[in-house]
C-alpha cells in the first residue's frame, strides 16, 4: 500500500469502518513508514486538541435544567388539556345557540297559538292571540300544513272546538 492511500485512510483507523484486511495493511505500513507514522501521530493529536477545545466550551446544563424541562412539560400538558376541551366546548356552545334559535322559532309557532281564537272581521278570518306575531305564524304553519287549502276556507269550516283541537295537535 502506498503512502497516499494510507494517509487517506488514516481518519478511519480504529473506528470499525475499514475492512479488517485493509486496516491490517495500513497498520503494517505505519509500522514501517516513519513519515506516515508521524502523520498519523499528528492527526491524532490534532483531533485531541480540537475535541478538548470543544469540550472546554461545552455548556453545563445547571441544577435547574431538569426543573425547567418539567415546567415546560406541565405547561404543554395544560395547553393540550385546554385544546382538548376548547374545540368540543366551542362546538357545543355553537350547537346550543343554534338549537336555542331554532326552538325559539318553533316555540313561537306553538306557544303563541295556545291562546288563539277564531276571529272574523269584515270577511277576513284570522286567529287573535296574546302574541300579535302568532297570527303570522299560524298563517305560515297552516299554509305549510294544508298547502292546498286557503286559511279562510279552512277556519270558516271549523268551529271553536276544532280550532282548539288543531292548536293542541300542533303544540304536541
Amino acid at each position: 500500500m502506498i503512502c497516499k492511500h494510507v494517509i487517506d485512510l488514516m481518519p478511519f483507523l480504529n473506528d470499525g469502518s475499514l475492512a479488517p484486511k485493509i486496516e491490517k495493511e495500513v497498520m503494517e505500513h505505519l509500522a514501517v513508514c516513519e513519515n506516515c507514522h508521524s502523520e498519523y501521530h499528528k492527526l491524532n493529536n490534532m483531533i485531541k486538541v480540537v475535541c478538548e477545545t470543544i469540550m472546554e466550551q461545552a455548556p453545563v446544563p445547571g441544577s435547574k435544567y431538569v426543573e425547567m424541562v418539567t415546567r415546560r412539560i406541565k405547561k404543554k400538558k395544560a395547553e393540550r388539556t385546554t385544546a382538548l376541551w376548547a374545540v368540543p366546548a366551542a362546538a357545543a356552545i355553537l350547537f346550543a345557540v343554534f338549537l336555542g334559535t331554532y326552538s325559539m322559532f318553533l316555540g313561537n309557532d306553538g306557544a303563541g297559538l295556545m291562546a288563539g281564537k277564531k276571529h272574523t272581521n269584515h270577511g277576513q278570518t284570522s286567529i287573535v292571540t296574546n302574541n300579535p306575531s302568532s297570527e303570522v305564524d299560524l298563517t305560515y304553519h297552516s299554509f305549510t300544513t294544508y298547502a292546498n287549502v286557503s286559511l279562510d276556507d279552512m277556519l270558516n269550516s271549523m268551529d271553536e272546538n276544532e280550532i282548539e283541537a288543531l292548536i293542541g295537535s300542533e303544540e304536541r
Partner: protein
Amino acid sequence: MSNFRKNMKAVIPLPDEKCLLKQEVEIVEDIELVRRFKKGNESAFTEIVNRYNKRLLNTAKVILNNEDDAMDLTQEAFVKAYFNMKGFREDSSLYTWLYRIVYNLCISHLRRKKIISFISFDHDDEVMEFHSSEPGPEKEYERKELRRSVIKAVDALPFKQRTVFTLKQIDGLTHGEIAEIMGITEGAVKASYFHAIRKLQCMLKNHGEQYDM
C-alpha cells in the same frame, strides 16, 4: 476511547466486561428506563434527562454556536421526547432518537434564522483556558493562540462537516448512528468526516509543532 464512551463507563458500573459490552449495558438501561416511563414512572424520564442533557446540550451548542439557543432547544427536545415516547421503537437506541430530535430542532431553528451557512463560535479568550502543567507566560500565549486557531478552524467548517465531526469525536457515535440522526447515508457521513479532517489539518498546519505533543 471517546468522551461519550468514557462517560458511559463512568455512569454505568460494569459487572463483567467479558459478559456484556458497554454499549449493550447502556442500551439495556435506556430501554428499561423507557419501559418504566411508558408504565407511568415519571422519575424514569428525569433519569433520561439527567443522563443525556449534557451531551445533547454540547452537540446543540456546537451546531448552533449559541448556548442560550442550545439550552432552549434541548429542553424543547426533551419535551418532545416526553410526549412522543410512546412512539419510540425499542429496536433503535434512545440516544440516537434523542440526538435526532435535537438535530432536527437545530436544523429547523437555523433555517428559520437563515444562518445555517455562517455560524461562528464565540471568540471569548477568557473562557479558553488551556490547562497546562507549565504555566509560563510564553507557553500560555502559544496555547491560547492555538485554541483561537482551533476555534476559528472549527468555525470555518461547513455545518454538516462540523456536526459529523462532533457527533463522531465528541459523542463517539458510529457512522451508522450519525447517518440515522442526520438522515444521510453512511457514505455521506464518511465523506463529510474526511473533508472535515482535511480542512482542519490544512487550517491548523501552522500549529503542527504545538499540538504535536
